[in-house]
């Protein structure tokens, strides 16, 4: 049964995932963490980190990983988890495959019409909101700890957040390199 839900969920994510990999992350997070509780927030954040650092599209990477972890967390072995990651990845890709074939077959000429463009125009600000929501939902105890529980880890986390935002947003440091710096900081300061 979980395989069926996994398929439906990632098919929906593939169908409604506008705005590239990051836009898709907010959908994946909402479905897998908030709705089905297949993963914890910390697990989801780890998956995003690993998806970012490994080759390939972030959407595919995180779907594969989420599928694996969801089945693994449900108490199945590696083989079933492998099947879970195949299910999630296939389901994510399927809408793209169908939609792009349809577009190249017959809708190519409609893509530039004002009406289709106005749909995309409506989507753009909403996708910004989706990303903002994903950021807010990830700012929680699992990722940052709390000032009460562990003030040291909390303030180090806030510092790492600020440093990464400044480093990638302003100094244009490569995100993968930034993750490596944060890993080193974690090892030295949060061991």
């Amino acid at each position, binding site marked *: 049964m979980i395989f069926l839900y996994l398929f439906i969920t990632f098919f929906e994510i*593939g169908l*409604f995932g*506008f*705005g*590239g*990999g990051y836009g898709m*992350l907010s959908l994946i997070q909402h*479905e897998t963490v908030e709705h089905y509780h297949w993963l914890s927030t910390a697990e989801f*954040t*780890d998956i*995003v980190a690993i998806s*970012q*650092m*490994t*080759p*390939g*599209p972030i959407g*595919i990477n995180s779907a*594969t990983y989420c599928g*694996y972890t969801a089945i693994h967390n449900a108490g199945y072995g*590696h083989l079933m988890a*492998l099947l879970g*990651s195949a299910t999630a*990845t296939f389901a*994510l*890709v399927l809408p*793209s*495959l169908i*939609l*792009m074939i349809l*577009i190249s*077959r017959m809708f190519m000429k409609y893509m*530039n019409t*004002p*009406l289709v463009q106005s749909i995309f*125009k*409506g*989507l*753009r*600000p909403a996708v*910004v*909101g*989706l*990303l903002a*929501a*994903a*950021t*807010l939902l*990830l700012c929680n105890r699992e*990722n940052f700890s709390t000032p009460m529980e562990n003030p040291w*880890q909390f303030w180090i*986390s806030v510092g790492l957040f600020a440093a990464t*935002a400044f480093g990638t947003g302003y100094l244009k440091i*490569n*995100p*993968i390199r930034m993750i490596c710096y*944060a890993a080193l900081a*974690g*090892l030295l300061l949060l*061991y």
Partner: protein
Amino acid sequence: MQNIYLESFTTFFRIGLFTLGGGYAMIPLIEEEVVNKKQWVSKDEMLDLIAIAQSCPGVFAINIATFIGYKLNKTRGAIATTIGTALPSFLIILAIAIFFSQFKDNKVVAAIFRGIRPAVVALIAVPTFRLGQRAKLNKFTIWIPVVCALLIWALGVSPIYIIIVAGLAGYIYGKYIQGDKDTSKQGVQDK
């Protein structure tokens, strides 16, 4: 004929294997392989293709791969390039997932990920603002992402509903409100 399936598959497998940092990092690689070397699509077609793949839902790289595959060999060609793009990610993530599930409770690994998590949250926060700039938000539209984010974050509304409503709103706005008075302007923009 057999050859072109294999050739398009291996080309996209290579592209999937060697791009770090997600879908958009793939554009130069795809252009090099598909436009310059293999000449499967022209430079102008590639520009149209990028615009369509960006506005459609789903994983950006998969959209492009499907489109080019379909152009080469219809549906079977699309399947070959899609699998080619997704397979490297799938195999690499699978290997990491199996490996990582054994080391997750290791103290060193746990410390490293405590450092990485806040950095990843920042990596999602930064593109939120970049996307906001690109969506050309002004004082009349800035409330849209704010309301969307609050609906998802505070009230737990599914991002899928937000996407559907935003697309519909764009459609209605384009058809009935902007309607006639703007068609002349739109026509100029299209050229």
